[in-house]
């Protein structure tokens, strides 16, 4: 039952995503992609949950720490670089 609910959520979210993004101007394709990529770094929440498994030095824990580090690169790098790009788009608007 829980699984079915999750499946519902998954499918509905895909439809929502389709509606949200269907009309994006080409100017924003790259920032949209890198911003969305940063959001996919949400897997960091899973990584944090994993970091509690097992005893010191166990495989699960080490894998969890790796997951945290990689997900953090994804999140921080993604949001910052997207912001940098979008700042370039905006600075021109003021000049005009």
């Amino acid at each position, binding site marked *: 039952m829980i699984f079915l609910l*999750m499946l519902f959520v*998954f499918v509905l979210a*895909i439809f929502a*995503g389709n509606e*949200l*993004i*269907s009309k994006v*101007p*080409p*100017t*924003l*394709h*790259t*920032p*949209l*992609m*890198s*911003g*969305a*990529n940063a*959001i*996919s770094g*949400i*897997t*960091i929440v899973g990584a*944090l*949950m*994993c*970091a*509690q*498994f*097992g005893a010191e030095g*166990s495989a*699960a824990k080490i894998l*969890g*720490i*790796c*997951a*945290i*580090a*990689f*997900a*953090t*690169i*994804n*999140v*921080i*790098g993604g*949001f910052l*670089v997207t*912001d*940098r*790009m979008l700042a*370039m788009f*905006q*600075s*021109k*608007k003021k*000049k*005009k």
Partner: protein
Amino acid sequence: MDNFDPAQAFYLLATALFILGIKRLGKVKTARSGNQLAGVGMLLAIVVTLVSPGIGIQLDWTMVAIGLAIGTSIGALMARRVEMTGMPELVALLNGIGGLASTFVALSEFWGRKYGAAITPENVILGPDVWGVAVVLSILVGTITFTGSLLAMAKLSGKISGNPILLPMRHLLVAGSLLGGLALGYLAAFHQGSFDPAVMILGLTACAAVFGVISVLPIGGADMPVVVSLLNSYSGIAASMAGFVIGNPLLIVAGALVGASGMILTIIMCKAMNRSLGNVLIGGFGGDAPTTGGASATEYESVKSAGAEEAAMILDAATSVIFIPGYGMAVAQAQHVVKELGEELESRDVTVRYGIHPVAGRMPGHMNVLLAESDVPYEQLWELERINGDFKTTDVTVIIGANDVVNPEAIENPQSPIAGMPILNAHESGTVLVIKRSLSPGYAGIKNPLFERDNCYMCFGDGKQFLTEILAELKEN
């Protein structure tokens, strides 16, 4: 589900912030705030996870801090340091790292549940079969995203050739690694008694890694916009699968949103080349412009060439100019000179616009980012549909390092390999200046009859250098 966990309420809030953020990312005016909104959502999700009583107790804070610190410094450094010309590589790399993180989450959950003591209450709710399938899919998609992205990055940065690399028996290898991975995954999820699931899982990871590499190998450099956006979609799907593994709807929703957005971009890119996704993925289509050039592709008659002086005279007489940038502009790093030339022309009351083909460059929106970097106002960047009717009334079109996206064969010759591909109708304008190194064909490997037309002048040379010379000539007058 019995006890209400307040953390879930915050997860719901974070989900809403992601949805709002993505929505706002779709409009130029609101895009920056949209990205920041999504960032706030992410911060909220992380903080809530860290302080939520379910996990805080057993958390090894030192190791978490180390992981966060390493990730933050590397991520921030990459985002600061990257040049705008290196953006396709960075986006590909970040996609891959996101996929890898999801793989590690699934691996860690797997080891934790198989051999560890603690189990999160959520994944007990899911039946072991469903959980196993989610672990397998998360590892599969995540690993494919990782190795595929690394290879795409190597192709984009020129570390390996952008040409399609066709291995012998590649279809067999692709099918074999995928089916092998799925078979091992099936055994790991459903037959844990008879085999050591750890071995199965590691085998699955290896198969997925191989699949990621050999499925991107045959895809040519010019098809990279499709590959990068498809990998973007995969990284979201992987995060979503990781959400099923740990039983967290926030991951499922956020991942699905990214999966959908990546897929939409993929479809837009395919349409802009009038090719199906399958056709792109099978690969073998073109690459970086072949250095030697095929025989028939380079046989041109009556091509007129113009030097910088002549080009400057033509531009001087114009009242309306459209620039068409292509991958060649990115390679020559000519975007700043283009903008200077554009401004010089504008100061002479010339209408200056830029016609941007959706697949120009190596990732979706590549040209827009480069021109934005050199401060071209985005009002001057016109997309294909909006500008195509205006070429007839335009005096001069300047093409910088683009080829197939302006090839009239796509409209006029139904037998052409690129027939039906939407092109920028540069040939309709009064005069066409093509700034290009040589007559070598573009990624489609075919001749461009535009170069032979009466109204077309070839300006052979490096884009940046040639434009600088034109600019100097113009300023002398």
